[in-house]
């Protein structure tokens, strides 16, 4: 074989459909489109078997096949003369192909319908250029000529992890490193929420909205699929745009109550997405996702490298949470005035002087049954972060206290935090982010490890319903 399969790596990522030609035992040819041809090794490729269609029937009768793939970087077509070898219904290759199909299908609510029955493995007998599909003169991508995952880059990434002194600085510096060092401009980190099989975004980069608090169910979109499968997923391809639009359409048709959630930030037209699970000894501590408007932005080596970065990040997040818990001050901080302050005392004049557009007074309503907070009629946050914020605001209103500790929140029975692995730090982080974006009149300012202060910039009317 004069042209190696390795040199056609970009053809095997599904941006342009491939064509499959087969022939039945009685001599009737068949032509079909394929979304994806999977590279197996230097002399084999795999095709997905999802439905018992004519192509599949033909292969059982006559193992000869022809596949035409296109190089998306140059437009050059390549014909692969194939011979069917065997089918696999389990194992790493099957899992990889099945996951990709599930991830794409999940976008249009077809999860479970496009199931992979088998990975059909073919020996590649010959590879030839397609005469009419001539490649353009544009230079082909040469990843090895300008690698981004160098030892130096990894060292930089590692340094940022080691220098982080809080969960907030850790996730922020990691996403910044992904952009500055590796060029991935749009990224996010999600962690498991209190609700089972739900992820919540705690940090994003490259989007107009910070999206903190946005929730994704396991199995939904790339982050949910990664969480469910606990395996990396890389998507780029022909179906992305269409499927994304369908997903948006479905979202618009959801009931109002279901839409009263924070939308996950995302590119309007992501051409490439990559998600990796953040695992520590098999436990999911989060999901790291990157996306791009460029087709084929993420290649196989990117997946492997980001998976490696993810493994560092997972341990770092886990360590940060455990360290924060072990170092939290044992007692609440007693710096509060003895009696509740008047409403006017809750206002920081300095803050309002600095930003005259801030209102004098806002209404904060806590819906206890829904564990949800609305500010001036606008949804702010729900679940544990909402309970925590309400606890802080009511404590402040009652006693005038501004300083709080993580420890006292853990001991507060009304919050009902789990004894072990409460993820309090990540809940506080997303609460802080959400406030920054949607309610700048209330700030949560870190005042040391395991401590923070309320920074109120206007009067609050607290109402519980």
């Amino acid at each position, binding site marked *: 074989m004069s042209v190696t399969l390795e040199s056609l790596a970009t053809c095997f990522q599904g*941006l*342009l*459909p491939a*064509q499959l*030609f*087969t*022939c039945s*035992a009685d*001599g*009737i*040819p*068949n*032509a*079909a*489109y394929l*979304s994806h041809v999977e590279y197996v090794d230097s002399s084999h490729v795999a095709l997905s078997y999802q*439905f018992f*269609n*004519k192509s599949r029937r033909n292969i059982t009768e*006559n193992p*000869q*096949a*022809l596949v*035409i793939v296109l190089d*998306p970087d*140059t*437009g050059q*077509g390549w*014909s692969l003369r194939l011979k069917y070898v065997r089918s696999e219904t389990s194992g790493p290759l099957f899992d990889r192909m099945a996951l990709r199909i599930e991830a794409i299908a999940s976008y249009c609510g077809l999860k479970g*319908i*496009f199931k992979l029955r088998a990975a059909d493995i073919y020996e590649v007998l010959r590879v030839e250029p*397609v*005469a*009419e*599909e*001539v*490649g*353009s*003169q*544009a230079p082909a991508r040469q990843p090895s000529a300008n690698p981004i995952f160098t030892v130096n880059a990894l060292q930089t990434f590692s340094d940022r992890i080691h220098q982080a002194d809080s969960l907030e600085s850790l996730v922020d510096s990691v996403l910044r490193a992904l952009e500055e060092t590796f060029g991935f401009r749009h990224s996010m980190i999600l962690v498991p929420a209190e609700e089972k099989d739900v992820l919540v975004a705690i940090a994003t980069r490259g989007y107009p909205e910070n999206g903190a608090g946005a929730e994704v169910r396991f199995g939904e979109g790339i982050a949910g699929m990664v969480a469910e499968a606990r395996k990396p997923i890389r998507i780029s391809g*022909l*179906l992305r*745009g*269409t499927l994304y639009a369908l997903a948006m359409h479905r979202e618009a048709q959801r009931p109002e109550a279901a839409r009263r959630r924070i939308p996950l930030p995302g590119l309007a*037209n992501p*051409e490439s997405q990559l998600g990796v699970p953040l695992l520590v000894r098999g436990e999911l501590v989060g999901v790291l996702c990157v996306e791009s408007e460029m*087709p084929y932005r993420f290649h196989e080596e990117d997946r492997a490298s980001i998976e490696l970065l993810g493994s560092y990040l997972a341990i770092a997040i886990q360590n940060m949470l455990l360290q924060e818990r072990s170092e939290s001050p044992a007692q609440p901080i007693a710096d509060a005035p003895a009696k509740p302050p008047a409403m006017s005392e809750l206002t920081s004049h300095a803050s309002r002087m600095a930003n005259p557009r801030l209102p004098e007074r806002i209404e904060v309503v806590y819906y206890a049954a829904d564990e949800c907070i609305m500010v001036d009629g606008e949804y702010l946050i729900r679940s544990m972060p909402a309970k925590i914020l309400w606890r802080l605001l009511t404590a402040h209103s009652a006693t005038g206290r501004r300083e709080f500790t993580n420890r006292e929140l853990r001991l507060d029975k009304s919050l009902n935090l789990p004894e072990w692995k409460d993820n309090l730090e990540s809940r506080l982080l997303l609460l802080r982010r959400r406030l920054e974006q949607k309610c700048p009149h209330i700030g949560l300012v870190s005042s040391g490890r395991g401590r923070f202060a309320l920074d109120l910039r206007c009067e609050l009317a607290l109402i519980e319903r």
Partner: protein
Amino acid sequence: MIDPDLRAFLEGGLGIHIGSRTARLEPNGARAVAVKPEDDGLHLIVYVTEVASARVLPDLKANGAAAVVFARPVDDRACQIKGIYVDARPAGDADRPFVERQWDLFLGNLEKIGIPRIASGAWIIWPVVAIRIRATAVFEQTPGPDAGALLATRS
């Protein structure tokens, strides 16, 4: 067999490929640049570049068995027409505006899903051979459980 709705779909700027096979049942295939269903609803002309036709015409002339697959890039709607080779001729100047218009529609459809024309800018689309096929069956081929369903047949 090819009703007006199907004809409008086929002429809407689709990805088109024609398949054939050798005497030893080896499949062959090539991209087509345009298709023109005839008014009788039974025949269609598949325009294949001369250089690509070299891969399928010998088979078609030898045994006649043809398969033409059509797919619309924007929504993956697809169908396949099985048929019998009738004849082939070099496409002339009279065909060229039609062929180029349909090819342009196809590139426009690719653009709608984010594939720029530069990716296909160097592809050869002329000279072209007009291959006439008599359709014998039409199959659904949109991805999904119904792919492969027979839509129309005529022996």
